[in-house]
């Protein structure tokens, strides 16, 4: 079956612009995560969706970051008024349920803010 997909694969934007990053999780997976990975660094947790529960937003670095998950499937991460420090690879992952036994990652979106 299809894995986790993300779009776009690359995004270059000017400082101050808004961007939207999309994630399509594996069908049937109820848990969805967003992470950020700066060059040569580990993964930084951003936000977690599980079923119909309120999302865990505790990792979002500022109020410029927000995310939605529509119909329990596709998720969109929005960054408003982008800054150069937002440049990173944004990774999405899904897992079967809240047990988080195994996370399946997408290929990521490389965001460059100029």
């Amino acid at each position, binding site marked *: 079956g299809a894995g986790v997909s993300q779009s776009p694969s690359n995004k270059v934007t000017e400082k101050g612009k808004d961007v939207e990053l999309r994630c399509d999780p594996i069908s049937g997976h109820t848990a969805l995560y967003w992470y950020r990975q700066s060059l040569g660094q*580990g993964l930084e947790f951003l936000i977690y969706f599980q079923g119909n529960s309120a999302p865990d937003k505790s*990792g979002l670095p500022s109020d410029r970051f927000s995310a939605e998950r529509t119909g329990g499937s596709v998720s969109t991460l929005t960054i408003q008024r982008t800054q150069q420090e937002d440049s990173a690879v944004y990774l999405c992952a899904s897992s079967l349920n*809240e047990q988080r036994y195994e996370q399946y*990652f997408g*290929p*990521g979106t490389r965001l460059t803010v100029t």
Partner: protein
Amino acid sequence: LAKTTQPISMDSYEGQEVNITCSHNNIATNDYITWYQQFPSQGPRFIIQGYKTKVTNEVASLFIPADRKSSTLSLPRVSLSDTAVYYCLVDAPGYSSASKIIFGSGTRLSIRP
């Protein structure tokens, strides 16, 4: 919060067994230990998960001592394709907030011919 510590980098040769150790002194009762592998320009990929003693699958073994304050990922007979970054995670699936998931900086493993 269970912080993990891993070596920044390791080198080995094809055909050798590689052991990567992760320290997690503050591991909690409900925590599991999970290892992921990441190749350049790709998302991490699940390798193995365990709670105690030893777990083995088709690609690796995971050794966890009785006190669970460390764990060792063992890769048998590595090949060039095992060159990647390996992350150790300590997490309590279903028991804690997802913000407890901390990947850390990982161990960069380089395999030489």
